[in-house]
């Protein structure tokens, strides 16, 4: 059963764009965001095969006219882009223009463009709803690193971008009937749900035609603040681990920090669409990947009748280096060997196995004293990074937030004495409690009290733990389970259309709204997480999809621990800044600049107030 595939959805659009232009030499004009959207799914060599010979950014087109070239413009409908396009049409450098907007465009914008097109160069104006980054077949991201604004509310431009991204995703998957459910405790989720509902209502009729289509799509909008622990954990599956320990940005991995790295491997592309080994091992455990790579290498070794036995990952590395022809044949393998050996180096260097085991126990078991002792012991271990101590402190702070025998302060002091934690790191703990503490959460994140969790623990007692490093199950999995079984409570996750049932236009969707507890069978589920998702969540949804579920997961960003710290701390800084009444007297631009300085130079300026004080 073919599942819905967001990569395929974007690919359809790009392929159509190129195929609809019959001219020989084509240029592809993109903006910053659409350039990453396209680069996520197509390699440049693939586009060359389709006679696309020039790739340009709309904001930096050249001067010389290339009249015989056709331009395929794939851009977001932003004010800036429209202005640039109008300027370009007034003085065209290409012979013809095929314009595709990644989202809705206003009628008056079309009029402006038509007025500008004095040379009659425009051949096509269409909306192609590929306005999101397709990361894996079931994972998308809107690439917004910081979503939260002051007091955890929306910033208008980010809200607009999010609505556009999400609605484009819905249209790119050909869904028209949607049921939106959102997390009640989050104002942001509610606002977003309302906006999507109204946008869908105004846009659907003009775009879709098949009214008889009765399939329902559930859009579930949740807030990262409900589950702040998942981004804090160390990961042990391949993709998640690479992102956590090295970092993946638009499918690119920067390996320049790896000791003794070869020049050509400083930045590698990790795209499961073009890399078979990566595709099969995306969700493999760390141990399995090493075995798989070893198997691959041994297979090759046999071919070359080399008898030297490969015992360790470092052996493999030397092996690859001594066989240039092998490297030529399988550039991907040498890439993966480099990455896996780097990962295993880091795991050993920072004692991550022990750290991770304690993290998992902290979240899933409930032996308070034992955990405190273990954390204290790790603080004395010089191999363990400050960052990992911070992870443990954060998990501890969230887990035992309101426990009477909470030893957070003692632990913090000890950490402070033993190690020099940076200002930003120290600020992170209170910021995190503000971000995702019990005050905000509507469900018990640690699930130690619910019957389901107890049964889970009980089973563990019977069977023993399969994998101590994978005990934690992200909240989203539980939510999806409940949603599928019709057990997701309307009081916590209400339905948007429920409140305007009086509206006769809405009778239809109101009828489809079924009483609580009864299961609505959707054709697919789209999850949007305000504040970003993690690859651990992607893994769990992948597993569900393998068992017949049709779920697409996405969020504002794909976080790892360090990007998560950045988002939480910058939000907190801004909130704190606005909390100071004295600032209202200052010019808004000044405040904005101070805020920016704090984000970009957190080491220098912990507190924006200090900038004004003249420090």
């Amino acid at each position, binding site marked *: *059963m073919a599942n819905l595939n967001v990569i395929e959805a974007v690919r359809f659009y790009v392929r159509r764009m190129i195929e609809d232009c019959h001219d020989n*030499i084509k240029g592809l004009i993109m903006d910053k965001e659409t350039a990453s959207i396209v680069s996520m799914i197509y390699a440049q060599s693939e586009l060359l095969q389709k006679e696309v*010979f020039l790739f340009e950014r709309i904001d930096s087109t050249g001067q010389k006219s290339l009249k*015989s070239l056709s331009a395929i413009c794939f851009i977001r409908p932003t004010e800036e882009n429209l202005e640039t396009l109008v300027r370009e049409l007034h003085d065209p450098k290409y012979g013809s223009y095929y314009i595709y907007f990644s989202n809705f465009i206003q009628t008056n914008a079309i009029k402006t463009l038509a007025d500008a097109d004095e040379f009659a160069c425009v051949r096509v*104006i269409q909306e192609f*709803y590929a306005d999101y980054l397709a990361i894996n077949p079931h994972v998308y991201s809107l690439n917004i690193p910081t979503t939260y604004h002051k007091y955890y509310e929306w910033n208008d431009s980010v809200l607009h971008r999010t609505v556009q991204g999400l609605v484009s995703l819905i249209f790119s998957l050909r869904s028209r009937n949607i049921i939106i459910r959102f997390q009640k405790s989050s104002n942001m989720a509610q606002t977003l749900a309302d906006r999507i509902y109204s946008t869908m209502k105004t846009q659907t009729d003009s775009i879709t035609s098949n009214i008889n289509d009765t399939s329902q799509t559930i859009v579930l909008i949740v807030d990262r603040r409900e589950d702040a622990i998942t981004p804090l954990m160390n990961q042990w599956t391949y993709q998640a681990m690479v992102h956590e320990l090295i970092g993946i940005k638009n499918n690119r991995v920067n390996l320049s920090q790896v000791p003794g790295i070869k020049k050509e491997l400083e930045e590698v592309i990790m795209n499961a669409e073009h890399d078979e080994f990566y595709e099969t091992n995306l969700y493999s455990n760390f141990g399995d990947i090493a075995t798989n790579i070893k198997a691959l290498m041994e297979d090759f070794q046999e071919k070359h009748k080399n008898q030297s036995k490969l015992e360790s990952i470092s052996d493999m590395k030397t092996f690859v280096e001594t066989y240039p022809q092998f490297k030529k044949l399988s550039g991907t393998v040498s890439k993966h060997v480099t990455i896996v050996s780097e990962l295993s180096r880091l795991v050993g260097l920072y004692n991550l196995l022990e750290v991770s085991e304690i993290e998992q126990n902290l979240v899933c078991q409930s032996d308070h004293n034992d955990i405190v002792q273990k954390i204290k012991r790790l603080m004395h271990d010089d191999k363990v990074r400050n960052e990992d101590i911070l992870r443990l402190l954060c998990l501890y702070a969230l887990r035992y937030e309101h426990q009477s025998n909470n030893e957070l302060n003692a632990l913090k002091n000890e950490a402070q004495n033993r190690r020099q934690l940076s200002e930003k790191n120290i600020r992170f703990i209170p910021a995190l409690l503000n971000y995702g503490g019990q005050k905000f959460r509507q469900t018990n994140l640690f699930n130690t009290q619910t019957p389901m969790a107890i*049964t889970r623990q009980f089973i563990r007692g019977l069977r023993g733990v*399969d994998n101590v490093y994978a005990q934690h199950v992200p909240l989203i999995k539980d939510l999806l389970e409940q949603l599928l079984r019709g057990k997701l409570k309307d009081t916590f996750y209400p339905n948007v259309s429920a409140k305007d049932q009086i509206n006769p236009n809405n009778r239809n969707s109101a009828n489809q709204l079924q009483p609580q507890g009864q299961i609505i069978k959707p054709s697919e589920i789209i999850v949007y997480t305000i504040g970003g998702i993690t690859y651990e969540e992607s893994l769990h949804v992948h597993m569900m999809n393998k068992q017949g579920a049709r779920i697409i997961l996405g969020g504002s960003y794909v976080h790892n621990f360090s990007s998560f710290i950045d988002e939480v701390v910058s939000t907190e800084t801004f909130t704190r800044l606005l909390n100071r009444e004295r600032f209202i007297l200052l010019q808004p631009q000044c405040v904005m600049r101070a805020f920016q300085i704090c984000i970009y130079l957190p080491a220098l300026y912990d507190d924006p107030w200090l900038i004004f004080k003249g420090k």
Partner: protein
Amino acid sequence: MLQTIGDTREGFLCPQCHQDMGNLEMLQIHFQNVHMKQSSTIIKGLFSFAKQKLKSVQDNFQNSNEPSKMYSQYFSFDPHDYYSKKQYMGFTRSHYAYFQIVRKDKLHEIYTKTQQLLLRLELLTDINEHTPPNGNTKERRKYEQSIIPWMEDSVVSICSSCSASFGFSRRKHHCRLDGLVICNQCSQFILFSTARRIIDSNTSSTLTTNNSSTIQQLMNLKTVTSSTIINNASNEDHLRICMSCARCLQNCYRQIFFKNIPKDEIFHYYENIIQARKEYTQFQSTYVAIIDSILSGNTKYQIKDAQQVYRQLSVSYEKIDSVSKKFVAFADKCPNIDENDISSKARYATLCRNIRMYAIQLLQNFSLSTGRLPTEDEIKQARDAKQRSDNELMAKVILTIPGINCNVLELSEELKPFIQQYYQVTQYMQQAKLAGRDDEAKFLESNLEELAQAMRVAHQQ
């Protein structure tokens, strides 16, 4: 298993006896006391039993390795529905129809205005015996006013372009193309010669040899008007016009310019590549057919046929290679681009390199998909093999023909075509029988008998 999910109760249930124990401790005590006290073998059995009982609950938490589709029941998606397996392209919306309407209006508006101005310009710059020369101010002014009436000086107190009020230091002037009153600062001047060139190149839609030089001269200009009177050597006549008319003429000039931008060299070269690519693919299909035929031992084609096509292939191959190599040179030189225009140069270079890359990929694909010429030995082997299999077939067929019984090798040459014919008819007959065309089959059968008869006669001779 799937059916039991609906019955699953939540709570502190004992997996063995389904008793709700209230809390975890009670459950553990209950399980240890009641169920663990039995002998170890029973416990083992019990555990596996408990595990089985718990399986539906476990699936909530753990991913089993077998590819069960436990979640598909929750989706309205039908796995057996063939059509829904395929994902279609997402929704799109076109705005081109509306765009075209707006653009058509706009272009029409521009066109009428431009044509009007050009007509006046033509009359004003036309030099013959009827038009007074520029030197004769009075007559000239009269003539100009006969083409477009000038606005009365007395009714205007401000400049129609910059809205500054006229006075001693700001004198009134008239635009010769629309008669509006403007000040000197807002005046533009167009040379008669430039005006004639615009008119000429606008009226002649096709590019003829004599006006291509006109256009060439026109292309060298940056703007068609200037804000000051040019006193060049020839002391040429000029017209005073207002800003908006100047803009209109400038636009008209740019349209002409845009239409006449020469095609860049590289596009001609690229067309050569496309041409060669087309030829190659054509020859390639012929070549593959020939090689296949030769290697299966047929004598329809000779090795020299293959060689001939192969030569043609290499010609196209070489052509693609040599032409695309030129692009590398273009990338380095960047002809026709201003030295200082770095961004355009970089763009041009990238374009050229990408085309070369495309050509290299093309050539790689071609060389992979085109097999080499077979050697004499291979051809001989293939023919021998064909001969052998033909003979074997012949021997088989002979056995089926009634009345003839002899060795294949002894067979006379005249009989061979008969036998082949016989074999073919047998094949046709089988086909006809399979397809249920009984009449045809019967006809073929009688045909066969006649053939056999004829062969018997021939054989005996």
